[in-house]
């Protein structure tokens, strides 16, 4: 639903927001963390071509157990945003952030502390992204604290993506720590008017740039 230029612009914005998040994260954990966005798409899943595109580029982590931090935001621009990691990688992430030896404690289950850490990471990243969008739209967003859940994504996929809010932004992101790399995804679901506003805003920016 976005043309190439619009998508580029959106990606550029998102890169900026995520960049802020990564510098914040780096500061929190005293380690260099680089976040990159290989892929971003804004989809209307009621449109067959968007559905097709989604099925083509759907991240592989969507086939596994995932840990998600969810923030809901409201008012004019409303919807929810979630940061997803494969469950096993979420643990790696938590341990790396805590500066612990990952191998020694691999029992496959996440502890309360792991959940707190993931909650904060989700908080930082989603806040950056949502805050960025809020700035972009000149809106003050109100949002909840992140909730952290573990689920098998395919089971929840329909409930997450195909609800009353028809527009979905899927952002694939990659975390790079010293020598570790792990993939995550941000899924934002928002309503039609929000989407229109976002696109309008992007167009305005593009007009500004291109003259």
């Amino acid at each position, binding site marked *: 639903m976005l043309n190439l230029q619009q998508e580029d612009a959106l990606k550029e914005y998102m890169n900026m927001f995520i960049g802020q998040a990564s510098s914040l994260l780096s500061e*929190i954990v005293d380690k260099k963390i680089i976040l990159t966005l290989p892929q971003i798409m804004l989809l209307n899943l009621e449109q067959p071509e968007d559905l097709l595109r989604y099925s083509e580029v759907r991240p592989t982590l969507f086939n596994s157990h995932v840990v998600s931090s969810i923030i809901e935001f409201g008012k004019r621009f409303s919807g929810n945003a979630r940061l997803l990691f494969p469950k096993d990688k979420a643990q790696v992430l938590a341990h790396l952030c805590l500066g612990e030896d990952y191998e*020694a*404690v691999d029992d496959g289950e996440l502890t*309360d*502390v792991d959940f707190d*850490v993931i909650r904060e990471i989700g908080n930082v990243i989603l806040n950056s992204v949502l805050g960025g969008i809020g700035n972009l739209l000149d809106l003050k*967003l109100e949002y*909840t*604290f992140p909730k952290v859940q573990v689920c098998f994504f395919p089971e929840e996929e329909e409930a997450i993506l195909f609800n009353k809010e028809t527009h979905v932004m899927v952002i694939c992101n990659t975390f790079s720590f010293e020598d570790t790399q792990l993939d995550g995804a941000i899924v934002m679901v928002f309503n039609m008017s929000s989407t229109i506003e976002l696109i309008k805003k992007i167009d305005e920016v593009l007009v500004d740039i291109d003259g």
Partner: protein
Amino acid sequence: MDSLCKNILKKINSGIIIFDEELLISHWNEWLEQYTGILKDQVIGKNVKEIIPAFKKNYYLQLFQKAFKMGQSMFCSGGLHPVFVYPANTMEGSIIKQNLQIDAIFMGKQKYILIQIFDTTNQFKRVETLKMEIANRKDVEQLLFAKKEQFKTTLLSVGDGVISTDKRGHVQIINRVAEELTGWTRAEAVGKPIETVFNAINEFTRKKCDYSFNALVSSDYSTDTIDTIDSVILISRNNTEIMIEDSVSPIRDRLGHINGMVLVFRDVTEKKQRQDEIKYLSLHDQLTGLYNRRFFEEELKRLDTRRNWPLTIILGDINGLKLINDSFGHGMGDELIKKSVEAIKNGCREDEIICRIGGDEFIILLPKTDASKAEKIVSRIQNIASQKKVGNLNVSISFGIDTKIDETDSMKAVIKKADEQMYHHKLFESPDMRSKTVNAIIKNLYIKDQREEEHSKGVAKLCQNIGAVLGLPENKIDELKTAGLLHDIGKIAIDETIFNKPGKLTEDEWKEIIRHSEIGYRILSTVKELSDIAEYVLDHHEKWNGEGYPKGLKGEEIPFESRILNIADAYNAMISDRSYRNALSKKEALEEIRKNAGIQFDPNLVNAFVETIVFMATAK
């Protein structure tokens, strides 16, 4: 409403700090008062910077600014952040963890920030303990794994076959040696019942041995390791039979319940063979394969019971063995023993107990057999023996028989009687055998060396004539003639190549040569009638001056007959061709004899000898 809010804030089980855009604290709840020991009045109106820990102060300030600006809510995990407010009485170095929740509250133009502080120390500690436990468990697991590997490697590389099973008796571990012995590979064997992989039978009954787990459990094993019967044959997968020794040990759990078993076994085929060999040798005679004296003594004890009476003993003794050993060598002696044993074996029934109890002595044990039956056996053996020949000698065995009929006879007496009877027979049978043997020896000697026949006959003739010249009685002359014929009989035992060697003899060869007079003596002395002649033969190389052999006798110490033999032997030798020289003429030979009168020869006899030669020449 305001008091309601305040009451609610009081009840909240976490710390609440509210401050405005100026960062001035406007609320500090009771929980915090209790937690930090800092009273509300001490902080209200103060800048929040004063309570923020110095470390990461800027980070928090940035967060607050952001929250004021954007209205963002933030969450700070205790795992990632230092303590925000210190509890009262904090010990230095103790771990405190707090999660923070930062909310921006906008009321019209007024902006506040609400910080909610959750103490997660306990939660964190719980997690830490959990982690440590997990880490410990991992360490223990790793240690166990290492130990297990160590045991496994040890087990797999020991030189014995090792198979261990689980509770159901199914193979769990099988080492390389066990793989080789059973013919099952590890991959094939694991999980199979032990009886399938370890197919063992009893050596004697050929019945399958029960190695099943039930057999182990049902047996009352007070000890930990059970050495099973030692006559076990393992039938490998390709049906090879392997003699093994094995032991089974139960594997017990902490409560002593049997949880599996370990079977250790080794190939004892070679060991068993050696044992059997040793056992065989300890009870058998190596040369003949018959039972030996030890076996005989044991067997006699065993058989000497009422059930086996009449118990007859046949004692046999080979005739002329010593003579043959001395004259033809031990090879031929052994041959004689073997032939005799053949005769004895063929004469006996298959299951008769035959023992060789001495060099030439045999015993046949005949339980439940009387003397008449034994006599039949003896005559059968003698009949067979008489048809057997060693060289051109007949095999001859003398026998004695006696029987234990009841308890009044002692076994010792029975053997003694049999022995006496045997010697009695020997008196008649042996001389005959011996003279035959002497004849055979002479014949053999002549076959071996044709020149010897001429020489012996020549010497005999000379002796006979010297006797006549000296006017000796007829029987003496005959004796001298026989002595002449037999004087070199000892040469039968000496390697002929030494005699025929051209050139000088080595010292060893010379020692060998001079043995012939002794050997001759030994052979001849076995025949009673030839015992005098044996003496003459022994001394026929003694010299008048005492420099001869074997004893170095001097002058008249040398028997008269030997002196005669000496001259005759020397003369005949000189007039014949020898390998080391040509023959002398008779004249030269005589001259030589004369020269040596008083040195080698009896000077008195030399004159008689010269006369004899003259007499012989004229008689022609």
